[in-house]
């Protein structure tokens, strides 16, 4: 029971996190590509409860920041006017869930802008970019993992079930895929593509690339499960009754791979989100100005950014709960699987 509870807990955590990212338009106060050219590299704003004169406020507020005279990146608080944080206020238009036109934002301030995670080189809100970037990166991870598992399942099942030359051929192919230097092939692939790729095309390209590259490992796992499953007594019995190959695979063997696939999915998704980040970091991903988690981190390639603007690291920190959630889910899935096995074997001995 405890295993089940941790599983549910991780699932709820991931659900909430993904819910926020899916409704990025609502939770993000601003348009992710909008440049506020007066505030490049603005540090994260502080939420105040006490103002400059020492008065205590019940409602949190911010002071807007302005550039210090003659400086490029040093800001000071304008303590003349506190801007209380407002919830559910109207702002830049967006489409909720991709189709509902909407202007309502979760939070913001009137006559001032709130930058919770600071801004980047162009004065774009890092927090909004993080949420919208999550849509790109997480979707790439989910879809990529889906494609990988589908290919892995098909190839693994065929290799494991039919065996013989098909098995040898497919497994050698899998080994070849594991051994290829992917990064360089990706660079070569990018060189062959048309020069300018729209963000949408780039996005699907990334998914296709990530998805088709990683099938070898899940295919091997599935093959192993299928190999052992097809020798089980109930499979032999079904075959004895004249069940066709398709029926056997569908009804008896593939369901056995379910837990392996789920665990694999929980491991692969964060891996693929990271892969998207690597590609974007190297300039092979979603082009600017569209945000993605990789794009958010790529400015850290510059030494001056690395040592001057600590808040550029914050997106990386905010990504950690997502990865933690997936890995927690994977380990609780594994735990659940083992608990089932024990349950089943003890039941078997009782009967």
């Amino acid at each position, binding site marked *: 029971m405890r295993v089940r509870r941790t599983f549910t807990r991780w699932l709820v955590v991931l659900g909430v996190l993904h819910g926020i990212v899916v409704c990025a338009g609502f939770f993000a106060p601003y348009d992710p*590509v909008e*440049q506020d*050219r007066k505030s*490049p590299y603005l540090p994260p704003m502080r939420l105040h409860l006490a103002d400059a004169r020492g008065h205590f406020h019940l409602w949190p507020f911010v002071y807007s920041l302005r550039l210090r005279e003659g400086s*490029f*990146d040093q800001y000071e608080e304008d303590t003349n006017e506190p801007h209380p944080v407002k919830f559910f206020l109207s702002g830049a*238009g967006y*489409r909720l869930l991709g189709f509902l*036109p909407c202007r309502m934002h979760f939070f913001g301030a009137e006559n001032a802008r709130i930058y919770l995670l600071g801004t980047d*080189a*162009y*004065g774009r809100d890092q927090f909004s970019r993080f949420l919208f970037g999550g849509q790109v990166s997480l979707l790439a991870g989910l879809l990529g993992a889906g494609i990988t598992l589908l290919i892995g399942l098909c190839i693994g099942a065929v290799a494991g079930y039919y065996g013989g030359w098909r098995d040898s051929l497919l497994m050698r192919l899998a080994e070849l895929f594991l051994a290829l230097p992917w990064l360089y092939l990706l660079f070569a692939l990018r060189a062959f593509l048309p*020069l*300018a*790729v*729209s963000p949408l095309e780039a996005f699907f390209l990334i998914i296709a690339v990530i998805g088709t590259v990683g099938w070898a490992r899940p295919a091997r796992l599935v093959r192993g499960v299928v190999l052992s499953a097809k020798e089980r007594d109930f499979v032999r019995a079904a075959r004895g009754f004249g069940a066709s190959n398709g029926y056997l695979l569908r009804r008896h063997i593939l369901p056995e791979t379910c837990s392996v696939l789920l665990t694999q999915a929980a491991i692969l998704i964060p891996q693929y989100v990271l892969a998207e980040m690597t590609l974007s970091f190297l*300039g092979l991903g979603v*082009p*600017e*100005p569209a945000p993605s988690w990789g794009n958010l981190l790529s400015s850290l*390639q*510059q*030494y*001056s*950014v690395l*040592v*001057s603007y600590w808040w550029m690291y914050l997106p990386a920190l905010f990504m950690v709960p997502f990865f933690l959630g997936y890995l927690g889910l994977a380990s609780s899935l594994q735990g659940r699987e083992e608990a089932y096995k024990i349950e089943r074997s003890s039941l078997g001995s009782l009967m």
Partner: protein
Amino acid sequence: MKNNKAHFLCARMLLGPLLSLVALLGHPTLVFPQQRSAKEELLVLPGEVGRSGGRLVMSLRGEPKTLNPLIAADARSREVIGVMQADLVHINRATQLTEPSLAKSWKVSPNGLEYTLVLRQGIKFSDGQPLDADDVLFTFRVYLDEKVHATQHDFLIVGGKPISVRKLDAYTLVFQLAKPYGAGERLFDGFYILPRHLLEKQYQQGKFDQAGTLATAASAWAGLGPFRLKEYVAGQRLVLERNPYYWKTDLKGNRLPYLDDLVYLFVQNADAQVLKFQSGETDVISQIGAENFTVLSRQQYGYNMTDAGPGLEYYFLFFNLSEAGEKTPAEMLRKQKWFREVKFRQAVSAAVDREAIVRLVYQGRGAPLWGLVAPGNRRWGNEKLAHPARSLERARTLLKEAGFSWNNGPNGESRLLDAEGKPVEFSILTSSSNANYPKMAALVQDDLRQLGMRVQVVPLEFRSLLDRVLQTKEFDACLLGLVSFDADPTADTNVWLSSGGSHLWNPSQAHPATAWEAEIDRLMEQQLDFCLPC
């Protein structure tokens, strides 16, 4: 869109040696030739007398490719060669005026066609061999030899004919030009005089391009510059040592340079240069970007920083105006119809927020430009040029006049349509070698988005970018920077002339394609023909 970047020089305190190095590189404002002895005509530099000894360590962004001044095309090779060689007449980059160098004096004939140069007597190459007119004759013979493919070969073609050189006596030479040359004796800057005794054999065997590789033994290479080759370690460093025969002295008659050794460390990129400097491994760092300048000035200990003022570098956006061939795709032809429309280009120019580029990309250490002359150019800059402020309204009016219109796209954003009703979309190529390029392009992209243009930024590695722009011509627009090596426009002839190979938007035209290019050609010819000394 157009931008100028200031150069910064930042030096860890090394006092005497450093000052003398700066002096050697031609920074003092007053230089006068003076005879020291009957034997050796040395150049005496004014200024503080320094101390001898010490070594100066600098970093280079990558390895130089060659020590041979004729075939060196990359900036790193030219930087190293610059301290190992000397030219006849030198342009002082600080004052932008010419100074005597190996030639102690020169005369120009009244018709501007004949330059008579007198060499310093008794001066020696870094291996102790004397310099005379034969070395100069040999040098120009090699520069003019088409088989050698010298990078500066084209600068010696004046009025369609190569310059001819003849010797009057062991120290006097006459250069004959087919047409007067507007830039005058600036012509001789950068033509390094080669040691005939070392290279003539190799040249006659037709192996000149193999001379001066980095693997050359120190004894087999010589020059007239302040330093000579000592040691080269592949992938790590190049060590130069003091040239004991150098022809400059200080006021007290001490032979320059003061420094014993000059070390160049090879590093990957600008950030690595900054790290090496911060860790104290190098003594001098120069030409650093604005962000790194800020980083270095924030934690200043043990070094001084100097803003050397604006340079001759400028950045600009240009469209592909190359002539359509048979293979040009229909889409390119459609796009070029917009690009060729003057009002379209004016609208783009009106929409670009130059001030924002200066502030956001260069942290205020740059200047917005409305022409191709950087503010660092004191001789040719024109303050009176109109500086229209950024105006999206004006841009929209111009586009409307040129037959463009707007509608609403699928996501409710405004889209610019051309006369045929097709949306205006194009891409801007830029170099990924420097983080500033994609940044500038991203700002331009956002500016043009406000006009309803859908622009994509494509950062490319520099070589493939040049290939696309100059060879295959498969690009829409490109954001690039150029550096003039001299304030005189003659240095940029192949950018300005429509027949020039670096006339980036439409290189190497047989005839000027537009009236305005023909006008620029005419003005360039006119200024080249204008004879200053006549």
